[in-house]
């Protein structure tokens, strides 16, 4: 997101306006109001709020409103100073810790952990007591006590960045540790740091008010908002505004700091995104034309069908981009259909739309969409959802993100039997164990109590397939299920998928970018490009039957075990390349 769009968001505007206001008060307040704020005027002491004295006057007859305005400079300067101390100290400590040798690093982070365990307020009081009660010592006390927290954040952010390939690449070309910190790590963690510094500032402001209120911060005759709060609180029953006035200033300044951190984080733009989602949610399915009459459940009825499917997404500038442009797919019971295409071709979107799984930010239109007799274009009843839960299985590319890492495999595999098949817990567990066994996982009962990270990649993918088998699957959608796996493991997983299909008679929609794999596994293949099906082929006869130049190019550009090694590989010519790739192949 650009700086401009951030500043124009609601949080950005509030942050800008608030900052301008406080800057003005801090600059001009002490100049314009110092007379009213600091000249004793005993005859007018302890007045109640009035037009002349909005917050009343104190025991020396000084205008409290003026004092609040004058105190803004000191309060804000101390806050910024303390935040600066924590931020600079934290960045220095955290970054140095990242490049230390391993054993010293352990010591450094250990010390951090101890300091973090130490109550923060206690640390502030400790330093103030040592250095004596004055504004400066309070500033350093609060600033230094904030260092461990900031250092920990910097250290965590920096260690996650320092493992990235580009940092490794810089090390390979001989960039030293300091160069890596300054050139690669700092710029990449700067954003969260700024956000956090702004958030810290609002906490710091409160702690200053607290310290001064306790009499440990700014000392009379100097005063900041906390000091004014302390003076006012004694008379809160007589003149509430004497305490509430400085309180309001503290709250307002805290709000502005929060808005600044919001704007820096780019959270302000969320409003438009929420709006887009709302539009999608209100109209999840809009019939493009008059809905076709509902297909009767005949013997040759498809298990799933979608006609003239279009999927569009809102763009950042308020427009709309259509990613699937009029695709019709009909899946017969027990059929294995492959969808092949490059990234951005709309193959996954088509499958997800078929399963009714697209998020509410997608705008879907279709003339007909059924799954096993259920009209998917209408709002689903609870019974429909239950049927979908039992009869539809999904296998995704990366099981590490599609399986919940916090739940055991058993918990995730018993969900469908328990919720939709209404089995008891013990029966559901037995069901899940059988499913795991049928995908070739040995010792299935013990494995059920393990977590996804205790499974290897191939095992996790088997578990995903097992999960699809815990219901009564009529359709399994497998979206690049083996792309993250090695060929030998891929072969095993494909075998498991094939066996599952034979045993359950389920249809499979198999999505892949590998046309050879698709042809080796499916009955029928749809070739997709730019959101359109360009050709539909018999899987066994792709090489012979393919007539569309794009399908032919897809076949040609894939090296196989018979490719001529003396010649360059054919590439997809620019005029045929998918639009997302056009510039890519053209250069």
């Amino acid at each position, binding site marked *: 997101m650009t700086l401009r769009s951030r500043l124009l968001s609601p949080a950005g505007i509030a942050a800008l306006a608030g900052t301008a206001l406080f800057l003005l008060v801090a600059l001009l307040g002490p100049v314009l109001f110092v007379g009213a704020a600091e000249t004793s005027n005993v005859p007018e002491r302890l007045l109640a709020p009035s037009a002349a004295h909005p917050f009343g006057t104190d025991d020396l007859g000084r205008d409290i409103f003026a004092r609040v305005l004058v105190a803004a400079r000191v309060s804000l300067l101390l806050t910024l100073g303390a935040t600066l101390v924590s931020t600079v100290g934290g960045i220095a400590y955290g970054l140095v810790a990242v490049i230390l040798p391993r054993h010293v690093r352990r010591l450094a982070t250990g010390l951090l952990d101890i300091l973090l365990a130490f109550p923060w307020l206690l640390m502030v009081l400790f330093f103030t007591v040592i250095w004596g009660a004055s504004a400066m010592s309070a500033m350093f006390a609060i600033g230094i006590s904030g260092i461990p927290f900031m250092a920990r954040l910097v250290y965590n952010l920096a260690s996650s960045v320092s493992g990235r390939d580009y940092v490794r690449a810089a090390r*390979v070309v001989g960039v030293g540790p300091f160069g890596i910190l300054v050139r690669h790590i700092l710029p990449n963690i700067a954003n969260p740091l700024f956000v956090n510094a702004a958030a810290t500032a609002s906490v710091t402001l409160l702690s200053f008010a607290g310290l001064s209120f306790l009499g440990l911060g700014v000392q009379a005759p100097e005063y900041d908002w906390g000091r004014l709060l302390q003076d006012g609180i004694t008379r809160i029953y007589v003149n509430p505004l004497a305490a509430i006035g400085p309180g309001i200033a503290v709250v307002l300044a805290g709000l502005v700091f929060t808005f600044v951190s919001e704007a820096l984080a780019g959270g302000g733009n969320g409003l438009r995104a929420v709006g887009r989602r709302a539009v999608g949610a209100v109209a999840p399915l809009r019939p493009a034309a008059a809905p076709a009459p509902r297909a009767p459940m005949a013997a040759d009825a498809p298990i799933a069908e979608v006609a003239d499917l279009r999927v569009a997404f809102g763009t950042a500038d308020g427009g709309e981009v259509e990613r699937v442009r009029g695709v019709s797919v009909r899946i017969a019971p027990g059929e294995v259909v492959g969808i092949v295409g490059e990234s951005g071709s709309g193959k996954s979107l088509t499958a997800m739309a078929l399963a009714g799984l697209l998020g509410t930010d997608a705008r879907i239109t279709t003339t007909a969409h059924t799954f096993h007799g259920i009209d998917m274009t209408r709002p689903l009843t609870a019974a429909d959802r239950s049927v979908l839960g039992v009869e539809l299985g999904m296998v995704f590319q990366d099981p590490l993100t599609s399986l919940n890492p916090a739940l055991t495999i058993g918990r995730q595999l018993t969900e469908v039997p328990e919720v939709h098949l209404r089995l008891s817990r013990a029966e559901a567990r037995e069901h899940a164990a059988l499913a795991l066994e049928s995908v070739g996982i040995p010792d299935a009962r013990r494995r059920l109590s393990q977590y996804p990270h205790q499974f290897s990649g191939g095992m996790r993918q088997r578990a995903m397939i097992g999960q699809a088998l815990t219901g009564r699957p009529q359709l399994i959608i497998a979206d690049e299920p083996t792309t993250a796996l090695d060929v030998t493991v891929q072969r095993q997983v494909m075998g498991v998928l094939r066996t599952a299909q034979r045993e359950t008679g389920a249809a499979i929609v198999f999505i892949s970018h590998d046309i050879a794999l698709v042809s080796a596994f499916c009955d029928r293949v749809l070739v997709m490009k730019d959101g359109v099906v360009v050709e539909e082929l018999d899987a066994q006869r792709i090489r012979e039957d393919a007539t569309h130049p794009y399908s032919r190019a897809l076949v040609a550009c894939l090296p196989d075990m018979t490719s001529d090694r003396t010649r360059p590989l054919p590439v997809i010519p620019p005029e045929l390349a998918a639009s997302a790739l056009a510039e890519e192949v053209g250069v």
Partner: protein
Amino acid sequence: MNALEIDRLSVRYGRTTVVDDVSLAVPAGRTLGLVGESGSGKSTIAAAAVGLVPLAGGEIRVGGIPASGRGAAARGARRSLQLVFQDPFSALDPRMSIGDSIAEALRATGRSWSRDARVARVRELLDLVHLDPDRAGELPAAFSGGQRQRITIARALAGEPSVLIADEVTSALDVSVQGAVLNLLRELQERLGLSMLFISHNLAVVRYVSDEIAVMRHGRIVESGPTEQLLDAPAAQYTWDLLDAVPVLGVRMADG
């Protein structure tokens, strides 16, 4: 004459031995393909060669000079090895223009570059990988996956390496783009006389670019030899399994 020799290399992570007594040689001007499943230790060999992980045993020599250790000679030898990473999306600093990323790698040449020479060299390198030199000031986000992989290749070439190590460079790319990147690597090898260690789990891709192939499993070399010879008549059962698992267009996969 071998450009890169890996001699009885062992690497341990904690108590696990991930590379166990591996010896490999990349002949000058040729490509050695290293194939194996994930976790077999292929990428660790690459990381060990360029000094990203410490060796537990053995030696790595570049043009006959030991590349392990701290001395200036070893550092120099390591810098004439350059690595192209697998994932072009994480291999480029998202906050640094691609020109700066490539210019940074010029320091691996060990010479000092004037500002003009640096700019000229970056343009030259971008041109070499068929990218528009005028786009040097743009951030990585403005480029597609295949283009980014070209940029990382240009960055690796900036160090004027004698040996290029390509670690799964096409596995994150679409098939059509994969072909273009493979062609580029072969073209560069011919033009610059590079030696290359090409690491991949894709047997068909390794076969296409390599003069020799080494098959690796569980941290050890299972077998190695000239490409045709090895693939026509593999000696090890594991190589057979690998060959057997490659899907072939129009041939139904046997049940696993």
